[in-house]
């Protein structure tokens, strides 16, 4: 009987047609910013945001801070945040050659995708305030880091308060 089984396996082999998955490339693909997107598409370097550390330091020195803070699950700007943003707006108006990327962050107590939305909400609140202070909207962009970039690593209220923030990053 086992002989029969063996013959049967060979005789009744049915190749499954829809199984053309191939072995993956042996090497890790190149870094994503060298990807296959051709020049001129939206992932071209022309839309990338490049940081300017010296100018960033100047913003912090002149405006007092590049960061404003928020309450839990909040995106409203308190008096201190408004004062900081007003000083940032004066610096941006005095430095016309650069742009601001307003980067919103959330603490770790929200779920990943909600926090991405929350970070955008915070970045937008800061951006709108800067625009109201006279900074041209075309010089400002927003991005959200959600909970991906904490500055304080604890799991406590003090750390969370530092992480609920919007940072004005000077870019070219």
């Amino acid at each position, binding site marked *: 009987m*086992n002989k029969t089984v063996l013959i049967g396996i060979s005789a009744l*082999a049915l190749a499954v047609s829809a199984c053309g998955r191939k072995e*993956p490339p042996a090497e*890790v693909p190149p870094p994503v910013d060298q990807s296959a997107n051709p020049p001129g598409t939206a992932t071209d370097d022309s839309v990338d945001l490049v940081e300017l550390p010296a100018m960033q330091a100047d913003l912090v020195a002149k405006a007092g801070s590049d960061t404003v803070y928020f309450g839990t699950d909040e995106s409203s700007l308190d008096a201190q945040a408004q004062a900081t943003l007003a000083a940032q707006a004066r610096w941006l108006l005095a430095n016309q050659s650069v742009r601001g990327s307003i980067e919103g962050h959330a603490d770790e107590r929200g779920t990943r995708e909600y926090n991405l939305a929350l970070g955008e909400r915070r970045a937008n609140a800061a951006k709108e305030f800067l625009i109201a202070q006279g900074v041209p909207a075309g010089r400002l*962009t927003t991005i959200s880091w959600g909970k991906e970039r904490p500055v304080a690593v604890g*799991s406590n209220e003090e750390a969370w308060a530092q992480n609920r923030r919007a940072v004005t990053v000077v870019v070219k």
Partner: protein
Amino acid sequence: MKPLIVALLTLPIAATAAAQDTGPLEVDVVGGIQAPMAVAVPAMPSAGGGDLAVGRQIAEVIASDLRTTGLFTPIGPGGIAGYSYAQASNPVYATWRSAGAAALVSGYVENNGGRLTLACYLFDVTAGRELARQGFAVNANDWRRAAHKCADLAYSRLSGEQPFLDTKVVYVAETGPKNARVKRIAIMDSDGSNHRYLTAGKATVLTPRFSPRGDKLVYMSYQGRRPRVYVMDVVTGQERLLVPGTAFTFAPRFSPDGRQIVFSMASGGNTDIYVVNSDGGTPRRLTSAPGADTSPSFSPDGNQIAFESDRSGSQQLYVMNYDGSNQRRISFGGGQYASPMWSPRGDLVAFTKIGGGAFRIGVMGPGGGGERLLTNAWQDEGPSWAPNGQFVMFHRTTQGSGNATLYAVSINGGAPRRMPTPVGGSDPSWSPLNN
């Protein structure tokens, strides 16, 4: 780059008749946690008495797979005797009864010319009869897949559920400290083998999700400091921006037919849900309520989309028709609810529940009833279904360190099982069944 082919072979004795036989040997996966069934998995002989190593390795993979289901206690291959090639399809039941087994997975391996054939048999030891048989032919290097198929045969026949063991997992591999974490997309077999990285870690990446055929991923990347959704071909590594331009897009998932991708786009402090053809085109807006509408997930028939929204003032689960009509809230259990994912069986929606300072994984019916929480830790989030709708994978974050680890839990209860990743992991996506 050889094609990976699993040929399904019909073994000559009427396997279909055996498979349709609803005998007494069934594990109950509906009625809660049962005592696991003892299944003997001895080392398999080789046809012609050749190399025995692969037959033992295959039995080890089968035993490991069966253990991970939580329904079986495998016996062997270590510590029990093997059997002869002649006994592969004609077992000495008394031997396995005395070993304490209720069922037996046996078979044999035939290896010729770089191809490996696994003949897989399942027996009811107590009743002394065959329950199922199937042959699997693979490239010899892919012997693990033949083992997974054999384990799926046994699992499926004994549990009455669809197979899920021959699957992959894609996730975000995490290394480095909490404030400088490196995140790379990684892919592995669902038992942790064949692990490799798909991105290099220069740009932060989030939420990779399989296409319904498992050949593509959709995910979010911060490359160029612009967070946006990309589609990647798993085989070639080629990637493509989903929505041209600099719009902030995130939370992507494929539709069940793979032809569309539903995602969130945020602008001006407002996040809405859009859908776009997976090969490009103009996104169509599905929601417009003020607030954060995100984490969309299609129903398996493609007719509805579950999502979360804070339009009521707190994060809650909603369901809408595929065109955005008839948006209605389904979560009313107190606390907040996030990241819904519709079961591939359609009968449940898995979610993250936020309350009491913790995140827990739970399931409820798509109409909102029958909520059950499956986990209890500080922070469990991001559920992803096994293709048979019986298990949910998620990631658990440790308070303080922020280190994240993948776990899988049965929807029927029991302790979550830690997934074997070489580094920390988050945002898992369980693949469809390999073909």
